[in-house]
């Protein structure tokens, strides 16, 4: 089912155009979205990596400052003295107060990053879990979750946790270092707490809306901004990590707390085995620009479709207008009636179409007219034929009546003529057949001769020679009589006797009939002087009929006799045993006969 053959041209034109543009725009949308989304992800991740690198450096600086401080504190002799001090309460208290007042408190007060100290020791004087500087019994340390890690290493960073402070419970990240004296004895544990908010401020100082994670070398989360993915998702993120910096497009598992699963992850670390900063940006934030681009394309596309709608409508209208006009004209066409005027302003293919159509209609018009004339003529001919059929019958009946009248009046001779004439008419009618047996045709000729004999007396002699087997063959009726008549009229011209001979013989496939007279012969100008009032017409009629019925080599020829004076007519006919199928030909012949 081909739409180009099914539907209206303007619809096909219109919809295929619109569909084409829609498909084009859609492809452009998809392609531009794909390209620009990847571009943006690349450029965003480049930028983020640079930012992360910077932040990483800042964090590293802060943290190494904390690490250095912790070392300085851990080897500080007042601290070590206090830790190793035994006995007198007052002395220990004084040592502690001085340590706090002169060393630890100023250190905390002057630092923005360090928030509080926790010192685990064997026998603290007083345990205050809400102080800036807390002295805690070593026994507590072993209960802490970080203890195993510290037990194996001299120092370690541990992730976000809660500690007591003068400002209540605070979220901190802690650096833990064993306090070991020079003789290698472990005297306690020093913890420096850094407020999470302080580090978060560093991580968020560029006002990024992205979520950042700080992971230690073991992939444990130290801290985070905004959203904290559960450990399973951190593992999933780490699987993608390769090299010190890079980015990946990840679909995180649904289990997490993240509202958005589709993420761009960018990571950066200063060296393998160091801390790693990971930034998670919702993918839709990255591709927002591309989505806007795609929608802009869609808007432009919609506008283009709208525009093309009008344009194609305009085009198809203008293209189909002449076609529809033509269709309209063709529908309205009625031969013989004056048609609608054809547009003449077209000079292109439509012009050819219109002029072709005009020629066609003109020819149809002409044909129609001739057909009409022909029809009229045929009607006339048919009427004439019917009339002609009536005339012979009427004549025949009248002749019969005349014959009786002549008999009653004792006119034997007239009666005899009338009888012969009746016989001729009967043969002439022959039931409307155009072919009659040779026998009947010869009888017709004999009747004519007998009638002529009444007029000319003993002066007229004739001879008819026809083989028996030819007598049953069919020939066109009234073929011979005109020649005989011609022979008598011309042969006896100016004489009182004459002789007419008629021979019929086989020749090849046909019959050759010769009719001779012994008269004056043909005049020299007989061919040009055709229009003799009587005889010429009959012969011409026969000649033409034979031409129409049979064509060459059959036909008629007239010439002067070579063996003496007189004329010889020669008629060559085919051997026919049954009626010709003259459907086409007869009316033609008839028309010629009558016209």
């Amino acid at each position, binding site marked *: 089912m081909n739409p180009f053959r099914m539907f209206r041209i303007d619809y096909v034109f219109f919809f295929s155009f619109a569909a084409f543009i829609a498909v084009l725009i859609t492809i452009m949308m998809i392609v531009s979205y794909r390209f620009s989304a990847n571009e943006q992800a690349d450029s965003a991740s480049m930028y983020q990596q640079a930012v992360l690198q910077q932040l990483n450096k800042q964090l590293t600086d802060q943290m190494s400052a904390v690490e250095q401080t912790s070392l300085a504190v851990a080897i500080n002799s007042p601290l070590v003295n206090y830790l190793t001090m035994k006995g007198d*309460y*007052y002395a220990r*208290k*004084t040592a502690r107060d001085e340590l706090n*007042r002169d060393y630890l*408190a*100023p250190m*905390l*007060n*002057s630092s*923005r990053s360090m928030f509080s100290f926790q010192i685990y020791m064997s026998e603290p*004087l*007083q345990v*205050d*879990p*809400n102080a*800036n500087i807390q002295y805690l019994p070593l026994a507590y340390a072993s209960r802490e979750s970080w203890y195993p890690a510290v037990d194996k290493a001299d120092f370690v960073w541990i992730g976000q946790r809660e500690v007591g402070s*003068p*400002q*209540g419970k605070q979220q901190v990240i802690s650096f833990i270092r064993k306090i070991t004296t020079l003789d290698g004895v472990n005297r306690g544990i020093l913890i420096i707490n850094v407020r999470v908010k302080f580090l978060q401020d560093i991580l968020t100082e560029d*006002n990024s809306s992205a979520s950042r994670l700080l992971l230690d070398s073991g992939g444990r989360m130290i801290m985070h901004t905004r959203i904290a993915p559960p450990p399973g998702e951190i593992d999933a993120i780490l699987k993608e990590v390769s090299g010190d910096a890079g980015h990946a497009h990840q679909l995180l598992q649904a289990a997490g707390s993240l509202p958005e699963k589709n993420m761009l992850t960018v990571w950066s670390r200063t060296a393998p085995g160091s801390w790693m900063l990971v930034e998670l940006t919702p993918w839709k934030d990255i591709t927002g620009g591309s989505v806007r681009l795609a929608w*802009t394309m869609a*808007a432009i596309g*919609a*506008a283009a479709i*709208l*525009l093309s709608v*009008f344009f194609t409508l*305009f085009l198809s209208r203008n293209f189909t207008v002449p076609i529809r006009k033509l269709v309209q004209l063709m529908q309205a066409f009625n031969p013989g009636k004056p048609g609608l005027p054809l547009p003449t302003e077209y000079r292109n293919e439509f012009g050819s179409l219109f002029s072709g159509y005009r020629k066609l209609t003109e020819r149809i018009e002409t044909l129609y007219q001739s057909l009409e004339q022909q029809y009229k003529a045929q009607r006339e001919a048919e009427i004439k034929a019917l009339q002609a059929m009536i005339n012979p019958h009427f004549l025949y009946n009248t002749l019969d009546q005349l014959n009786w009248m002549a008999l009653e009046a004792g006119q034997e001779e007239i009666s005899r003529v009338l009888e012969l004439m009746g016989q001729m008419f009967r043969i002439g009618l022959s039931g409307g057949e155009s072919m009659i047996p040779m026998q009947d045709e010869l009888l017709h000729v004999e009747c004519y001769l007998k009638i002529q004999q009444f007029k000319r007396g003993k002066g007229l002699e004739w001879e008819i020679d026809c083989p028996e087997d030819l007598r049953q063959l069919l020939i066109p009726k009234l073929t011979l009589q005109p020649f005989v008549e011609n022979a008598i009229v011309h042969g006896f011209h100016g004489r009182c006797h004459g002789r007419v001979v008629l021979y019929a013989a086989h020749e090849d496939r046909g019959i050759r009939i010769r009719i001779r007279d012994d008269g004056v012969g043909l005049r020299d100008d007989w061919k040009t002087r055709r229009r003799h009032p009587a005889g010429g017409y009959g012969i011409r009629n026969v000649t033409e009929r034979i031409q129409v019925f049979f064509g060459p080599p059959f036909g008629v020829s007239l010439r002067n006799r070579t063996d003496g004076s007189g004329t010889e007519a020669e008629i060559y006919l085919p051997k026919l045993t049954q009626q010709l199928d003259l459907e086409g030909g007869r009316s033609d012949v008839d028309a010629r006969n009558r016209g």
Partner: protein
Amino acid sequence: MRKSWQRLAAGTAAVLMLSLVLSACSGVKKEETGAAGTGNGKSITLRIMWWGSQARHDATLKALDLYSKNNPGITFEPEYQSFDGYQDKLSTQSAGKNTPDIFQMDAAWFNDWASSGRLEDLSSIPTDNIDKALLETGTYQGKLYAMPLGNNAWGMVYNKTIMDSLGVQPPKTWDEFFAMARDLKPKLAKDQYLTRDLTADSASYMTYQLSMGKGFSMSKDGKFHYDEATWKDWMNKWAQLRKDHLVPPPDVTVSDKSQDAQMDLLIQEKILLRGAHAAEFGGTDALKPGVMALTTQPRGTQAGGWLKASMYWSVSPNSQYKEEAKKFIDWFVNSQEAGDILGTSRGIPVNKTVADALEPKFTDVDKNALGLINEVSKDGAAFDPGPGNKGGWANFTKEYDNITQSIMFGKISIDDGWNQIVKLSKSLD
């Protein structure tokens, strides 16, 4: 036909124009929101630091939230703690030019700070309804450098529930005080006492000397006014009580951490009374609601308490946002909505209008504080802010504490202690 095409073309053009205009509009919108996001420099974080009890922290934080809500773009970075170590911290920050934009100031250090140019002039803040006498305490050389926040009085807080059950009233005089420390002990638990050992408590000694008519032990003009007889008398009385186990042992006494739920001896009911400011009472009551009450300091020959401004707001001259800070202080002291939230967390509000509007809403706690202030105002002394840290007084204060603690722990005799103090006083300018 042609007409309709023109119309169509015009319509199409209109649609296209419209879509262009719309997209242009949305573009503009985006830029605007983007500009709002970066805040256009209007996003300000004010650092603010104070000391106090949890009750004061809570009220202050609530007030800060309200202010941020009413003033979009202004947020706070609060730092707060107890009084211990506050001055050290502030001093260290000041040395690093890193003081918070706004910080709480105490009368005792005001002169030091104002005279050394570490405070911003606050004279532009309206003070029409604020007690002139209190304003005077925050003024240095005619300029207001510290905005007083409340009326305060030095008195005593005591465990009214236990005292009532024992059928005794808090001591009115020092004689009653020391007698009660002795008489009440048998009725108390083994580790329960009337008072802790005040040997090393310099503020209590100053109250004692004042009540004995000898004036403040150190004065604003930087003079050493410790009275030998009074001092030795004081130390001897405590030595006797210590010897007789009528006060907690020294290590218990030093473990006292005021207004800490676990470490405050009064809250733990290890002791029954303690010197206190009226403005602190809210915090104490919050830790043990309905148990405590305020009373005046014991009298000697005269009253021992004094009236003072509870505390002040000061602004750092290094602050980037001085005007915003002053605007905040104006709101803090002069607006009723701030007064409603803060209540008496910093004493009776200094703004008379605010205080009057607040009075019908006073709770028992507020009434207690107001009662003490009224009582002290009858015959109490005006507070002498003392010499501050200048002229060796910082070291003196530190060493004085060491000496008195040594006495308390029995490391040196009272006479040795006095000699050391006198020797120390010689190094003062």
